[in-house]
């Protein structure tokens, strides 16, 4: 089927259709219906994820008014000679047996997310929030919580938003921008941006080729669109060959993980395609190369594990050339500069520390992330931070966002134990021109020493910790100690 008739798409006025997807062939027939005669990799991936979650029931809202689709419809699809319905279907995934006789008794605990189906054969997958797969359990993930109401039952799902391109109005560049902006809306409180707003915001700059239907975006258009819509993106080159992925802070994994740690999902670009890195899982104690990355690829589906970024099977993914880093506008310092400063301070301290300083003998590495200061302070006690140290931090004036460079004990991390032995806290609005960013140092703790600096009078306070211990990371996105 290349197009649906309107009556096929809206067959009746029923509130929903319920499918028992444990019945042989049910998923296949659903995919055939929504994808038409053309395979849809994102739709097939959603079905794979549903199967991994053990989904038993699919509830389909048959007249869902999706704001993103409506915005695209008004700007593009509604202007075509061939008509497309203005309503979507929305799939809801449940791991229990939903009783079609009473849809007012849905179990929120069985909910695994939703996916909007656009009336576009071959590119049906619209706004999607699906629980991450079991393979990412224990990993560090960019995600946010979305709450919705289905027939009067409040439901919620925690995930990274996904959207596929339609290959005409939205291309991969638009889809990746939308995913990042949707996450920023849910996780950081930025205004919601619809797909048409993303399309329009990225029209600027030097235009090469047709914009409608879109032949794709330049990197400059993506950067401009992200800036217009409330982010302050950076751009950094990635090592394109394994042999160039040298030890140090500019490894491919090292760069990308800092932004995943920061709930700023990085957009990776090759020569012709873009995707979003949405999480990682540590597979060995090595920094950078010791992680397995996961991505949302709008043309292939959500939550796909990357076997090896330097040996991609698909031409579209070769090479991982650069990353667009979707930082919030309040954050002036980049992750790389923050980590360089933190490492600089720790190395200096360790090199002349007292002989009984425990961190001087540890094999240290660094874990860097930006976070809201108030959220970070609220969680100090539950992380096992020394009470006196927590008190010092809680009474330290801080900006809205701080960079935290944690000193991590590699051996403890490899064992899955609490692994943080210190941290440098850096003003996210510090000048990046006045090296070595010392004016940005708010506080530093390493082993026995904890020191904080007042912002106006430079009044310094210090505590000595008699028996410094390890505690768990303050990074969001991973509740398990030692996961990353």
């Amino acid at each position, binding site marked *: 089927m290349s197009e649906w008739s309107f009556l096929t798409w809206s067959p009746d006025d029923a509130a929903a259709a319920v499918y028992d997807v444990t019945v042989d062939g049910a998923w296949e027939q659903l995919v055939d219906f929504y994808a038409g005669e053309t395979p849809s990799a994102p739709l097939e991936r959603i079905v794979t994820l549903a199967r991994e979650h053990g989904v038993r029931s699919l509830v389909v809202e048959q007249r869902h008014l999706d704001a993103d689709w409506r915005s695209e419809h008004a700007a593009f699809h509604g202007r075509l000679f061939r008509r497309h319905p203005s309503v979507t279907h929305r799939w809801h995934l449940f791991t229990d047996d939903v009783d079609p006789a009473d849809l007012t008794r849905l179990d929120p605990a069985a909910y695994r997310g939703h996916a909007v189906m656009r009336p576009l054969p071959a590119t049906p997958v619209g706004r999607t929030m699906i629980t991450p797969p079991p393979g990412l359990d224990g990993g560090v993930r960019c995600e946010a919580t979305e709450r919705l109401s289905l027939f009067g039952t409040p439901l919620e799902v925690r995930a990274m938003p996904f959207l596929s391109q339609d290959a005409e109005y939205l291309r991969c560049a638009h889809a990746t921008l939308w995913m990042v902006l949707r996450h920023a809306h849910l996780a950081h409180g930025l205004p919601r941006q619809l797909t048409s707003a993303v399309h329009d915001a990225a029209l600027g700059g030097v235009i090469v080729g047709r914009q409608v239907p879109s*032949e794709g975006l330049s990197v400059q258009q993506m950067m401009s669109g992200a800036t217009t819509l409330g982010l302050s993106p950076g751009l*950094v080159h990635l090592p394109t060959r394994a042999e160039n992925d040298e030890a140090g802070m*500019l490894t491919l994994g090292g760069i990308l993980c800092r932004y995943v740690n920061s709930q700023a999902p990085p957009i990776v*670009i090759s020569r*012709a395609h873009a995707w979003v890195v949405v999480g990682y899982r540590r597979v060995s104690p090595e920094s950078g190369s010791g992680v397995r990355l996961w991505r949302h690829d709008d043309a292939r589906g959500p939550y796909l594990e990357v076997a090896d970024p330097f040996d991609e099977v698909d031409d579209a993914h070769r090479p991982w050339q650069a990353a667009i880093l979707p930082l919030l506008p309040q954050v002036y310092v980049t992750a790389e500069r923050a980590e360089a400063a933190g490492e*600089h301070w720790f190395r*200096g301290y360790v090199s002349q520390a007292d002989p009984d300083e425990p961190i001087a003998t540890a094999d240290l590495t660094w874990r860097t992330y930006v976070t809201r200061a108030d959220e970070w302070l609220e969680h100090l006690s539950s992380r096992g931070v020394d009470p006196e140290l927590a008190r010092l931090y809680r009474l330290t004036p801080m900006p809205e966002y701080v960079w935290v460079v944690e000193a991590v004990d590699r051996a403890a991390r490899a064992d899955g134990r609490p692994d943080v032995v210190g941290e440098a806290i850096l003003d996210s609005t510090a000048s990046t021109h006045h*090296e070595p960013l010392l004016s940005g140092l708010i506080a530093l703790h390493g082993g026995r*020493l904890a020191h904080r600096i007042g912002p106006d009078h430079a009044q310094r306070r210090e*505590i000595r910790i008699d028996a410094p211990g390890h505690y768990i990371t303050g990074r969001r996105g991973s509740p398990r100690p030692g996961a990353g």
Partner: protein
Amino acid sequence: MAGIAGKRTVVEPGEPAGDLAERLGLHRPEQQRAFRATLDRVRDAELRAEYESDGIRLR
């Protein structure tokens, strides 16, 4: 503010402390050179991304 009746002084944790720069070795030339070299590599990576992104069309 000091003259307003009822003001109570907040008890801050720890002791007054001196400059940290000495203990972090920030004045040591070799450490400064290493830090600047790192920042230079970061800047190079940013500039390289900028000029290598010319002509790319993402679809």
